[in-house]
């Protein structure tokens, strides 16, 4: 266990004894990273905030079940990933259910979806184009910098599967980045290709 993991385990114990300060410390220690994961997975700030909220509610309500077999953060991020998957699925269904009439005016908010993420647009669009299992692996491993073993525990898949997803995810990401940059950056101007 790392220092952070030991600290978290102690904080969970204190929280279960009713110490509000432990709740605050756990939130402060992890909220930005959970938000980062959710924002990259959902690509919408409001949706990410909802998912972060739902994640922490779930984790604190089930804190008594935390057995300490893995790090608290691993458990937390696993809940976050699952919450984001569920949120994405709900969002997808919500978007696909009401088919708009052909002569309906275009959705004025559609163009704001990616802008609301407030991140590097080309990267976000490229991440958006990845299959979700690749995107999740790349986000956890490369964006959040988690160890492959930790990602393996979070996703509940063998480490070899994680490696494969990260590898393929990076290749797809590079392909999409190339496509996205093409219109404004002709090949002759590419310096790092």
């Amino acid at each position: 266990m790392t220092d952070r993991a030991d600290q978290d385990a102690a904080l969970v114990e204190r929280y279960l004894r009713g110490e509000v300060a432990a709740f605050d410390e756990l939130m402060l220690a992890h909220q930005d990273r959970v938000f980062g994961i959710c924002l990259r997975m959902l690509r919408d700030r409001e949706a990410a905030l909802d998912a972060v909220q739902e994640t922490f509610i779930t984790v604190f309500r089930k804190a008594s079940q935390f057995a300490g077999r893995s790090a608290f953060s691993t458990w937390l991020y696993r809940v976050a990933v699952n919450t984001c998957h569920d949120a994405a699925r709900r969002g997808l269904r919500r978007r696909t259910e009401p088919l708009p009439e052909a002569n309906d005016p275009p959705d004025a908010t559609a163009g704001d979806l990616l802008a609301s993420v407030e991140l590097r647009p080309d990267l976000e669009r490229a991440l958006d184009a990845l299959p979700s299992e690749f995107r999740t692996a790349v986000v956890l491993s490369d964006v959040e910098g988690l160890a492959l073993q930790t990602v393996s525990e979070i996703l509940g898949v063998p480490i070899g599967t994680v490696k494969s997803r990260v590898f393929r995810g990076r290749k797809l990401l590079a392909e999409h980045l190339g496509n996205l940059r093409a219109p404004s950056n002709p090949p002759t101007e590419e310096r790092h290709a």
Partner: protein
Amino acid sequence: MHSHDLDLIAALAEGRLEADAAATAEAAVADCLRCAADLAAHRTALEAIATSPPVALTEQEVSTLRTAVAEAIGIATAPAPTSPPPRRVPWGAIALAGASLAAIVAVVPVLGLLSTTGGDDAGTDIVAATMEEPESEPRLNVVEGSPGGDLDATPQPAEAADEEAAAAAPITTTMPATTIAAEEVLAGRDLMTLWEAPEELQATLQDQSTIERDAQACADAALEVLGPDMRVIAGPLIHAETPVVAYVADVEGTARLVAFDPDDCSLVLVLP
């Protein structure tokens, strides 16, 4: 590089190799077109990620989040937010999850009929594993919002939620006793027929094709519960809204069902 060594390419792209090893690897990659293309792709992706600004919550978002979570889990000393009112807590979604789990638990007992040897008390020995949940565990402490699980449902008072949940959730440690009538209705139907037949069950669990969660979710836990001789008939069956992962398996000729909480693969239910 004679073989397409993915680990080496990744290590090189991530800068994890010592200088000498990196130089050797670079030279090897240069002799392999496919390796060079992969290395370039890795570096492009990693460079884009590295130059992306970090994300962080604003102070207002931190305050709002803290308040909403504290209220939801019953911490009374949560400070008041500094500006807008707290973000809504998605009670509807949480309630829907609880209701769906209850629906699954209510429906699956009939499966036990098909795997038992018969008799009036078939199914009475079905035991649902408890999760050692605290009293404030969300599944039992919420009420359903609108029938469609309206995310904007107004939060319910905790007392009302407790009463309604207690009335609506038949989640107990022992499944209800089966009836002779039920056995007659189900007579002659095999497990897969039953699994595909009831509309409620179908609606609850059928859309596995849209499930993004890993296809092996809680597979190890299922193996641990059912033993190495199990043969999965259906699963993992994951509800579209609520986190319940279920497996139906043939264990030495007997159909059994196990359900897990995918957050930590803790056992929720085992039949029979």
